[in-house]
């Protein structure tokens, strides 16, 4: 499997990463190298092998339904570039 320059630009756009045409050109062989490397896994016959969810035998841990966090608005908002009346402020997003 390999990707073309359009796919590189699309992935960048979906990831909200600004990539110039020159950068995209440079990324293309890099990404294809990575894909080629990962693709080697396809050479192993895994028919009949259960997918591995975790490398150590572990069960999903669940919580009790209790309120243990919250009421730390100042902390939560402290990294926000803009805030207003306890809200995060973001560039207007409306269709």
């Amino acid at each position, binding site marked *: 499997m390999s990707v073309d320059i359009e796919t590189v630009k699309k992935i960048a756009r*979906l990831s909200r990463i600004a990539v110039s045409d020159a950068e995209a050109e440079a990324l293309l062989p890099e990404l294809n190298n990575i894909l080629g490397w990962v693709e080697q896994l396809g050479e192993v016959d895994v028919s009949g092998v259960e997918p591995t*969810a975790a490398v150590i035998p572990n069960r*999903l841990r669940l919580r009790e*339904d209790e309120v243990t966090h*919250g009421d730390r608005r100042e902390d939560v908002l402290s990294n926000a570039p803009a805030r207003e009346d306890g809200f995060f402020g973001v560039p*207007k997003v409306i269709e």
Partner: protein
Amino acid sequence: MTESNYRIQGATGEWEVVIGLEVHAQITSQSKLFSGSATEFGNEPNTQVSLVDAAMPGMLPVPNMECIRQAVRTGLAINAAINSYSRFDRKNYFYADLPQGYQISQLYHPIVGEGTIEVQVDEKDPDSPVRSIGIERIHVEQDAGKLMHDQHPTMSYVDLNRCGVALMEIVSRPDMRSPGEAGAYVKKLRSILRYVGSCDGNMEQGSMRADVNVSVRKPGEEFGTRTETKNVNSIRFLQQVVEYEARRQVDLIEDGGTVEQETRLFDPNKGETRSMRSKEDAHDYRYFPDPDLLPVELEDSFIEECRASLPELPDAKRARYEKELGVSAYNAAVLTADKETADWFEAVLGAGAKPKPASNWLLSELFGALNKRDLTLAESPVSAQQAAELLGLIDDGTISGKIAKDVFEIMLETGDPPAKIVEEKGLKQESDTGAIEAVIAEVLAANEDKVAEYRGGKDRLFGFFVGQTMKAMQGKANPKVVNELLKKALD
């Protein structure tokens, strides 16, 4: 299952509408799906946000057992297959209401598989057709935050209190064929969720909202291309969306156009849907299994505990009211639609009332009085216990049904127990045959001409004598006894 006869009239003939719904139901829980912050509605913005919800680096999600339990219970309530193995996936997209940059959902292995809901198309008519609506799946996922666009000229405001709250997405099959059926399906689903206690079904607060998939076709033909109208938050709007979209699509096709598979928004002010005109990228979610979360593996014993914890559900309750309690089909349907109503009715029975008269009284007298005062059942000034006492007084002949209406009015005003009102106001019904016979004798003596007419064959004068007797006794005579004694005296 009879087919729906709902049709859209087009220039080229009749069209049928095909509807499928994705209902998002907020799971009732104290804390969020993957964090310990509170879910309570209506608090100060961003006060119910943990570092997990704010997607701070290094934070790890830990699922809330109660949310899993409620999803399983809901699945069992719609006779669905429960998947003992399910897992969470990331649905990737960027939006200001989603700090993680992905929503944790279940695409590949949902927790609940196929089920069905039986829906009475017209809830007011127990003889109307019943449709079986297929449920494809229920999966558990996170809600996003709330955006406000009208508070600032250049900024949108973000409140993350709702971000990370657990939702069930309940996906139906495209089994509905009219706005009425779609509305009845959502009502029935809401009723079941409330019985189960897995969602409060409050559409105004957004605890329940629907994505509405609509397509049109000529009856009997293949499905057409569908549109999806997002986030519809009332049953009335849902029906408007179906009507509007069906009409729009028929007109579009008949004018030579084609329906685009797209996401649309409903504008309640105009009663219209419009295209969201998003870039095609919006649907490129690049799902993959969430590496932060191990699969959810459910033990049989856990599923059985969930099953055992279910209350009697509306369909079973309705059948029992009809078959075992002898309540009419209509009354049984209305009483069981809401769990609150059924609970109230059963409390009245628990306090000793007989089912049939109690059901009639509840639906006519009590509901009438509450409607008039704009009160909910929970706000009723008369308790179930008092209602049973009132019904008991009618049943044992202490007061007539007519007098009971007056007593009930006084109960509503004063909150006094009915026996006290009857005693104080001297409303007790006269059943003593001697006293009634004496009055009847007076009435007949005063109306000798009418007695002669009656005996001459004018049967309908009987009502006149009943009326005169009741009047003479200020309405307090036992009507049954009056009837019997009058018959004896006249015939």
